Structure formats: C-alpha cells, structure tokens
C-alpha cells in the first residue's frame, strides 16, 4: 500500500528489517519522541475508560481507593428497573433507527449516484446538512417539531412510544449511511447494470441481484455507523425524550446529576463492552465480505 515508496528507494533495504537496525528516515514510529507521543495519547484516551471499568468492581463507594472485588454494583444495576428499561429502550431505538436509516440511506445513495435530475445540487446539499448542523440546533428543532407541529401521540404502548426519538435519530443517521454507501457505489461498474437489463432483468431484479450485493460492505458499515450514532446520542434524545421514554444516556445523565455511584460505572462498563463487541463484529464482517462477493 503506502509503504511501497519506502522500499523503492535505493539504500533503504528491503521491507523486512531487523529490529536492532537504525530506523529508516521515514519510520517515525521508531523514533522515541513520537513513540512517547503516541503512547501518551493512548494513555490519555484509555486511562479514564479503563479506570472506570476497573472501579466498577470495587467495593468502596469512593472511586479512588481499591478495597476489594465485588459484583454488587452489577447486581444493583440489573435490579434497577428504570435503568434496565432505559437500556432496552436504547437498544430498541438503535435497532429501529438502523433498519430505517440503512433503507433510506441506500436509496439516497443510489438516487444521487444513478440519476441526473433538476435540483440535484440542492438535494445533495440538504442531505449533507444533518451531518454538519450542530447537534443542539437539531435537538431544539426536534423539540419544537414534536411539541408544536406533529405531536407524537401520548400513552402509546411500548415500542411505539419511542417513535419520536427514533424519527429524530433516523434524520441524523441516514445521511451518514448515504455517504458511506455512495462511496462504495463509486467503484461499481455501471455496465453490469446495463448488462442485467439487456438480458431481460427487471428494474427491481437488477437492483436486488446486481446493485445490492455490490453495496453490501457499504450497507454493513453504514448499519454499524447508524447503530452506534443512535446508541451514542445524548443531546438530540435529551430534547425529544419524554418522562416515560428515557434512553440509557439520558438515564445515566440524570443519575450523574444526583450522585455518582459505582452503579453508573457498572452500567457504563456493560455499554462499553457491547460497543467493543459490535465494533469487532462489524469490522470482521467488513473484512470478510469483499473477498467472497467479488462479482
């Protein structure tokens, strides 16, 4: 990939190098100031998170001294009805948001990739807006919309009462999906689509059997992105959530406002683990996908 530049230069030797050799001129990672910098950055990024995870097993309420190992806080978190409900709500919203965003995002990407139409620049520009508009502005827009323009019916049975939050999440997540999928479509050979149509495939058949398989890695990456964006969102949810539609971040926020207990640590640790597993699964799927889908 990018390292070919290095090996092509005479005097720098082959790609494989004995560790004892002096670092090549461009091997910045083997110079100590940069090693120190990278190390310090990783410590900065991870120390708080790792501390949080370790101290979720601590018997002491005060976080700074380690007193002993316990699962108490996890038990407490699992017995906390409203925290559990918030967690389930978050996962449900993230799932619904992912499904809708992937469909809308894929359609938007195909539309922008396949067609020329009047007003395309305007559509493209508006599609980029949810990505760049500050979260707080979008949050208040959703608050106003669901308070005055289209109030979401009160007292709906469970998954339906999450509708307002889900809609808000889809609105900011699907343009991200569209961007990812469109990047993937750029590598599609349009002749394949024409060939399918020449051979008698219908519009739908061509879309489903030719275009969708090619888009698949993009769709998976987009789905992963939509899921994490939704799970991660606090600000926009904060403005659209009602008293009985609390998501996990909103719940943690209100717990933080009152008191910091290791219960929050335990709940956060679970969410971090869920995120890490999801990322790993997503990356794995992306790595495997292109190889067996070469058309």
């Amino acid at each position, binding site marked *: 990939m990018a390292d070919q530049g290095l090996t092509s230069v005479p005097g720098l030797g082959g790609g494989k190098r004995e560790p004892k050799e002096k670092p090549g001129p461009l091997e910045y990672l083997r110079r100590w100031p940069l090693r120190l*910098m990278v190390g310090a950055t990783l410590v900065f990024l991870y120390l708080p*998170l790792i501390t949080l995870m370790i101290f979720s097993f601590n018997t002491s309420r005060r976080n700074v001294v380690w007193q002993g190992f316990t699962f108490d806080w996890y038990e407490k978190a699992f017995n906390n009805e409203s925290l559990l409900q918030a967690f389930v709500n978050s996962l449900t919203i993230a799932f619904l948001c992912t499904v809708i965003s992937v469909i809308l995002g894929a*359609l938007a990407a195909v539309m922008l990739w396949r067609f020329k139409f009047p007003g395309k620049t305007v559509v493209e520009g508006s599609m980029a807006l949810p990505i760049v508009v500050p979260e707080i502005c979008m949050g208040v827009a959703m608050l106003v*919309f669901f308070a005055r323009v289209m109030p979401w019916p009160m007292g709906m049975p469970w998954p339906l009462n999450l509708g307002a939050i889900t809609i808000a999440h889809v609105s900011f997540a699907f343009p991200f999906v569209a961007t990812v999928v469109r990047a993937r479509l750029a590598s599609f050979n349009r002749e394949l689509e024409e060939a399918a149509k020449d051979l008698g495939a219908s519009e739908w058949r061509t879309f489903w059997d030719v275009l969708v398989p090619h888009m698949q890695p993009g769709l998976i990456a987009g789905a992963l992105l939509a899921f994490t964006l939704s799970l991660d969102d606090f600000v926009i949810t904060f403005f659209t959530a009602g008293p009985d539609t609390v998501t996990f971040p909103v719940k943690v926020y209100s717990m933080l406002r009152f008191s910091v207990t290791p219960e929050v640590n335990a709940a956060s640790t679970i969410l971090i683990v869920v995120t890490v597993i999801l990322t790993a699964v997503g990356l794995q799927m992306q790595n495997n996908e292109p190889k067996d889908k070469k058309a």
Partner: protein
Amino acid sequence: MEQTWRQAKAAFAAIAVPPIAWLFLFFLVPLAVVWGYSLGENTGPTTIDVTGTFANYMRAVEPLYLEIFGKSLIIAGLTTVLCLIVGFPVALAIAFASPKTKAWLLLLIMLPFWTNLLIRTFALIAVLRENGYVNAILEWFWNGGSGLMALVGLQPLGDFEPLTLLYNNTAVVIGLVYVHLPFMVLPLYSALDRMDRSLMEASLDLGAGHMRTIWSVVVPLAAPGIASGVLITFIPALGAYLTPDLLGGTDSQMIANVIERQFKRANDWPFGAALSFLLMYLTFIAIAVQAFVQRKSERRG
C-alpha cells in the same frame, strides 16, 4: 454515465421519494419552524406569534451574549489547536508505521470514538476530580519530593493542596480535546497516508532536517487534510453541550448551554431559536472558510 430521471421515471420516483420526503418532513420542516420562531415573540405561555421581528437577534448581540459567543469560539479554537498539536505527530507516526501496527493503532484511536460520549465524559470526571487519579499521582510525587527534600536537609514542601481540575474552563478544554482527538487524527492520517513520500525523501536527501522537511514539505502537502481535520474538530466543539455542562463551572457556559436553557427552563423559545440560528450561521461560515482554503491549496498544488 448517470441517467436522466426521465429515462426511468417510475424507478426514480421509487428511489428518490422516501429519502427526500423524510429529509423534508423530519429535518427541513423542523428547522424552518425554528427559523420562523426566531423571528417571532412569545404571546402566551405556549403560543408564539411569528411577527417578523428582529428583537431576538438584537438581544443575541447584546454584550452578555456576545461574550458567550466569543468564549465559545475561543474554547473551540483552543480545543482545535490542542488537538492539532497532539494529533499531528500521532497521525504522522501512524501513517509511517508498518501495515500491521498501523491497523492496530487506527483501531485504538477509533475505539473511544465509538464509545458513548456521556460515558467518556463521566470517566474523565473520575480522573480529574479532587480525589481523582491526577491529584493522587501529583500528591504521591509531592510527598515523595517533600520527603526527599527533608532527607537532604531542606525545608519540606508542606501539605499537598489538590488542584481543582474540574468545574472550570480548563476542564472544559481538556474534556473537548479528549472527546474530539479522534476526529482530528483520522483525517490527518488519511492525508499523510496518501502523500507522495518521494518528496519527503528528496527533502531529507538534499540535507533538510526532519523539522524543516515536516514544516516545508509535509504541512503544505497535507494542507487539505489539516483543514478538514480542523473543521471536523471545530464544528462539534463549538456546539458542544454535554462537556461544558458536566465539566464546566458556572462561568464556563457555552452557546449550546444557553440555548438549552432558553428551551428547557427559561421557556423563551424565540430567543433560543435566534441563538440556534446564529450558531448555525457560525458553523456555515467555518465550512465556507474551509472550502476556500481547500480550493486555494488545490490551485497551488
């Protein structure tokens, strides 16, 4: 080639209508309503008349709010500069690492970015607070130093005073850097990774030092990447709500906090709407500046 929509009207409609309709109804309409409200006034507890008044915008440029805008810009700018100072060497090191190390380092930089923002901020509180980690480490050094000085016959340092690292502007900047660092590193990395290395090698061969090479060869070549990294860090930092809310003190309010107060507590929606749109205009100006810089550097290249 792209098709014109006329060649396949039915297909175009089936593909284009759902996303456009969604975007219109659930994004553009809400924004338009907020924009309308920014030109309106409260006529009752829950009624707002759109009267076309500019009073809300006039109020937003009063010194009190101008100061908050200025402060938000300074905090976001400082965050961006710090992210650039930390992020550039890191991105450089990653871009020139072996492929395997590179993949791992990228994953390590990206993983916190996937982790919940609230949890990360909360984790930072535990590290920074008065009986948190940083102070515990400083205290250890302090006591060690104090003991050492007593040992060599100097006056001991006295009792350790924990630093107040939370609930002030410094905490907000630290928090914003913590949260946005991956945003800076990734675009910088992709710009540095695409760069033509032979130019750097030529510069080094011709006797320029590393600093000189980085400053006069790498930085100009990576300028578009730097510009997009700056933008992608600056915009969310400018509109940050959670970080100043949780880590800041009474004087570290940023625009987003003021907007939230208008909508949730003060119940002055028209004024809040005006502030939101001003924040949005600032964002658009930042994007326009970035586009301008990008075009300029492309023309030069």
